[in-house]
């Protein structure tokens, strides 16, 4: 099998002014610099990224979600914890669509008259206590998105760092991978309980109860989910570092730091991106499991995971209560997935400009 040069990091075609890479030195020695004004490699990446339809769609959806959950509460000012007991178990206004063609329009005007427990005061319905679902979805989104993204980033950074170090430096491989084995083997629930036991009060004291718990949750999810990413990245790095282009780069005296940042990392972007999309879903769901343990946010604090879990029992009566958080989580994950696809393609010099 003939493995030729792997795609070689973004620097192979575009030489930047800011980074005096050995390449630049060798090129300068070989002849005059091409006359065309040098473009930033990141400009190229960005241009490619903006031309990726999926990435743009994902980006728009993602920004919309973020706007809805963070700006929405300014427009829809209902308190997500306020209990309007008379509205309990009311259905979403869209239930009007199911009442039949003739009554549909009058139903949107006056749902009560159509015999439907729904009202414009709670357009997406209300839960078993009469808390507004729209407000809870937005409040829940703030928590779930922040926790999901922060925890995913932490787990990715840890995973990529350990993976690259273990794959690249043979001396570190043994200890780091045995540590990965250890973390994989630790039982999750007792580990989380111990973390709460040890850190909840100090963190609450230092950062205030809400930020303290946020940090605790993000760290808890982050440090219990980095291991698969680390193993995957390491596997790829092990193969990469034997490739010819790495050998070539080394032969011209590229330092380890440069080698990792310019040649190794750009080539392991795709598994990292996949881990990122899977990681967000994982973090949002794990967060709900944590609050179930009494480890997460206070019980009246809605999150998408918890909204989904709490409404499982009501699946048959009020299907929108499970559909809404389920769709929200899926949309987030899908949009991040397409963003990741776009980023991966943009970082691939072979695809650039096509």
């Amino acid at each position, binding site marked *: 099998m003939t493995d030729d040069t792997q795609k070689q990091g973004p620097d192979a075609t575009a030489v930047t002014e800011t980074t005096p890479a050995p390449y630049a030195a060798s090129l300068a020695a070989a002849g005059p610099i091409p006359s065309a004004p040098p473009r930033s490699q990141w400009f190229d990446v960005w241009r490619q990224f903006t031309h990726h339809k999926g990435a743009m769609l994902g980006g728009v959806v993602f920004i919309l979600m973020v706007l809805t959950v963070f700006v929405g509460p300014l427009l829809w000012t209902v308190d997500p914890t*306020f*209990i309007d007991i008379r509205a*309990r178990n009311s259905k979403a206004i869209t239930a009007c669509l199911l009442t039949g063609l003739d009554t549909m329009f009058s139903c949107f005007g006056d749902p009560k008259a159509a015999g439907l427990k729904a009202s414009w005061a709670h357009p997406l319905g209300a839960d078993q*206590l009469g808390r507004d679902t729209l407000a809870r979805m937005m409040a829940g989104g703030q928590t779930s998105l922040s926790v999901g993204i922060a925890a995913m980033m932490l787990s990715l950074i840890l995973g990529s760092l350990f993976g690259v170090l273990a794959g690249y430096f043979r001396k570190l491989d043994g200890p780091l991978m045995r540590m990965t084995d250890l973390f994989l083997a630790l039982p999750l629930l007792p580990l989380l*309980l111990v973390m709460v*036991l040890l850190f909840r009060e100090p963190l609450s*004291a230092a950062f205030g109860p809400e930020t303290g718990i946020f940090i605790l949750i993000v760290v808890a999810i982050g440090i219990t989910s980095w291991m698969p990413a680390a193993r995957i990245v390491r596997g790829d790095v092990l193969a990469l570092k034997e490739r010819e282009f790495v050998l070539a780069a080394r032969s011209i005296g590229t330092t380890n730091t440069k080698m990792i940042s310019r040649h190794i990392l750009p080539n392991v972007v795709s598994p990292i991106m996949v881990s990122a999309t899977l990681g967000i879903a994982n973090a949002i769901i794990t967060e709900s499991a944590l609050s179930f343990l009494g*480890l997460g946010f206070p019980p*009246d604090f809605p999150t998408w995971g918890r909204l989904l879990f709490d409404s499982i029992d009501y699946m048959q*009566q009020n299907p929108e209560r499970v559909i809404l958080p389920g769709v929200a989580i899926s949309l987030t994950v899908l949009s991040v997935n397409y963003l990741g696809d776009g980023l991966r393609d943009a970082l691939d010099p072979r695809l650039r400009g096509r």
Partner: protein
Amino acid sequence: MRTKSLLLGAAAALAMAPAAMAERGADGHVNVIYWQAPSILNPYLSGGTKDIESSSIVVEPLGRYDQDGNLVPYLATEIPTLENGGVSEDLTSITWKLKEGLLWSDGTPVTSKDVVFTAEYCMHPDGGCAQLAKFNNVASVEAIDDLTVKVTFENAQPNPYGPFMGGQSPILQAAQFADCLGAAAPQCTEANFGPIGTGPFKVDEFRPNDVISLSANPNYRDPAKPAFATMTFKGGGDAAAAGRAVLETGEFDYAWNLQLAPEVIAEMEAGGKGKTVVGFGTLVERIEMNLTNPSSDLPPETRSTVAEPHPILSDFKVRKALSMAIDRELLTELGYGQAGRATCNLVPSPEMYASETNTECLTQDIEGAKALLDEAGWTVGAGGIREKDGMKLKLLYQTSTNAVRQDFQALIKQWWGEIGVETELRNVSGSVFFGGDPGSPDTFQKFYADVEMYANNFDGTDPQSYLSMYACGNEPKPSSQWQGENINRFCNEEYDALLKELAQTGELEKRGELAKKLNDIITKETMTIVPLVDRGRVSAHSNTLGGVVLNTWDSELWNVADWYRIK
């Protein structure tokens, strides 16, 4: 396949038996589901409800409580009382007589030696018997003759029905457990998983935490019973799945303890495959007030101990106002539906012990609560939160993780908000909250919160030991490794004096009066415990399962011998 051959066998056996009204095993197979799976079939080694209930199909006590809390004889000929001479005049001994001709499922006779052995088994100092409290104050258990057993107590026992009464203390076969005394108890896996009993069914196979296969006991004392030849007792999952399997898909015939929101149960019942049954016992969901200061600024030696009275809740008026702000009827409707009754009592039943005049708290009174707080010096400050001497009226309210409890927390937080009390909510995993780990800050005993909510009840029908929990000195504290039952750190001289009197009174009417007085002191007079809901039990059975009588005073499967298939 196995079921079929068993059925054939049972049918063949019955063909030779003299014609009876009903035939043993004629109704085939019955499926029971408990969403908590039984771990062991020896109730002396595990206090868990699931284990006690599942073993009650196989092993039986001398007498049980029926659905109204009355004592009914099982292996005994009658319930010994003062009137029939079974209980001695001085209340220090009780004499039980076994029915004649009783056989174990292996065909050997049941004798008083088995009863004596059972006491020896549980009272062994190294056994770690879970039902030791049933044998409190027992001085000796002796066999008078083959069918008579006399239990002698160290002192007068107004309620001598501790040992051998109810699902918690059934009779074990001496021959089977002879080598399992004390430290050897856990090594008798075979016996613990398949005790030989006198009950309507015997164990064919036990898979711990999963499933029990049972078949009719060929030596059961009533030759016509049980109607079912075989039984599958499945465990695991959750209440919703169990309810669905009985009410919606009809895969199972009986589901235990459906702790679900009323509308969810109603929706399932609409499936038309079965119906729910409700029974009430003594289980009361309540809010407990911490009378001591749980502040994290205090050193661990004095935090949440009697050395530091609570800065807010020590005031009766505040406690009273907190109780007045709660709408118990609404809580009951939302959380338990037909399976709950709003209550102001710690002891809601039996009738003779329940203080029926204590109903004041049932009406919510937000204005009254506000006035009371004003009176206590708590004035409304910034953001509608009351303040006094620069201190905010802010409470930490904790409970275990459970959907209904979290709903209650949210509702009560809103009502307390209306009267100017800020509430922080916390939920803790049940296995931590109810565990007694002195190293954890989140146990209900340690009570590092201002108020907490859970449910408790008492075994049998006599509330003496239940009320004694709140005796002064019985509080959890560092020196007792945080073990203790006086969760509120309540201390009241009058209460302690009445408790002493109760322990020495044998006359039932007088006991009733004393118990009611004790109940009133700890609830309406001091508002130390704020009862919310008298929680009943909802179970479900399929439309084709007959003979179900829900009993909350004993095992739910107490009359499984009488179950039959409606055709």
